[in-house]
């Protein structure tokens, strides 16, 4: 699946239509404004290092919690108050990937960062944002592995 699950594909198709740089910035900031940090029943500070997104200067953390139907719910924390792009991406990933089965999330490519941010991506941020997508992908792959292990045991 080229751009991963259905909701993500629809979202990317919508973003393609936002060609104006200022308008795109405003859309991304509106997503960042909706950012809600991981709730305390999932994680508390200091956040465990194994949930830290590598190479992300916004100090992002990510968690994947399985839903009863086997899909995943993603939670994020962004410690850098200036981490606007990381917050926007966290909201977008939650909105488009939470509730999706891990094997579908695992197909999502880090290239979506370029499609979402386009000219609003800065040099240092790009690598960190792609790393956020890879962290989500890794958690999905881990969930897939756990699920196949359970099937083997059953």
């Amino acid at each position, binding site marked *: 699946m080229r751009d991963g699950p259905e909701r993500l594909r629809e979202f990317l198709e919508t973003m393609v239509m936002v060609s104006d740089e*200022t308008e795109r*910035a*405003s859309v*991304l*900031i509106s997503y*960042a404004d909706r950012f809600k940090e991981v709730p305390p029943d999932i994680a508390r500070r200091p956040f465990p290092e194994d949930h830290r997104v590598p*190479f*992300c*200067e916004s100090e992002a953390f990510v968690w994947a919690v399985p839903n009863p139907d086997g899909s995943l719910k993603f939670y994020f924390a962004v410690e850098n*108050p*200036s981490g*606007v*792009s990381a917050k*926007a991406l966290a909201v977008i990933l939650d909105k488009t990937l939470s509730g999706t089965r891990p094997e579908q999330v695992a197909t999502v490519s880090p290239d979506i960062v370029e499609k979402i941010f386009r*000219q*609003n*991506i*800065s*040099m*240092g*941020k*790009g*690598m*960190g944002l792609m790393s956020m997508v890879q962290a989500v992908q890794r958690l999905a792959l881990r969930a897939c592995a756990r699920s196949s292990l359970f099937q083997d045991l059953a």
Partner: protein
Amino acid sequence: MKPTEARTYADPEVLVATSWVATNLENPKVRIIESNEDTLLYSSGHIPAAVHVDWTSDLNDSVRRDYIRKAGFESLMSRIGVTPDTTVVFYGDKNNWWACYAFWVFQLFGHTRAKVMDGGRVKWERERRMLTREVRQYPETQYKAQERNDSLNRAFRDEVLKHIDRKLPLVDVRSIDEYTGKRLHMPDYPNEGALRGGHIPAAKHIPWSRAINPETGAFRSADELRQIYMDENGLNPDENTIAYCRIGERSSHTWFVLKYLLGFKNVKNYDGSWTEWGNLVDVPIEK
């Protein structure tokens, strides 16, 4: 940390505190300018009355690897409502990398009524000072700029080669891994295409970040800076000095420190930096 005015800089006028900016927001002779690496930051909230100058779209030529020329600078100054008598005050993210870079480009056009806000955006935020999303529009001005003069503050590759022959000091302000050639780019940053790693022969390695107090984000005092640049690394304010990094942004930060805070008489920023030197055929490289 001592207040800005007590840190005995060579040119104390060029650096202002966040409190100074807060009291001059509505000063008609002052224009606050935010310059960032993160293109979303200004729109997500900025110092009230501040305008945005983008290092790529506003300061760089859109086709050749060079800066805007006289007409482009006049157009920019007109758009942000600046006259030759306006004092521009730069601030931004990444400990003022891009603020210093924009300040440096402004100096190529001789706009010397220019200052940097010490500590940059992060200090303003940490002090919980007001940010707004309201974009202030200023009446357009008629700004008559001088032709861009690169000779005083900008070095090109031929000058760097002569500089090496004359055994004059160069300062490499990148990370240790970039300096030694282990990496071709900053940690966490993309490789922008340097074919060779290492540094320009005999360049001193003084990372830009050493000029910053990590706790406050502000510049270190003149005494601390002298200790780093002169005592530890043997730089001499009377010698011609060239700073470089990867594309000239981090080295404009060090250029600012050497020229204004320590009073080096002739210091230039080699903005071609490693993305040029690391691709040039038959130039000397050390690892």
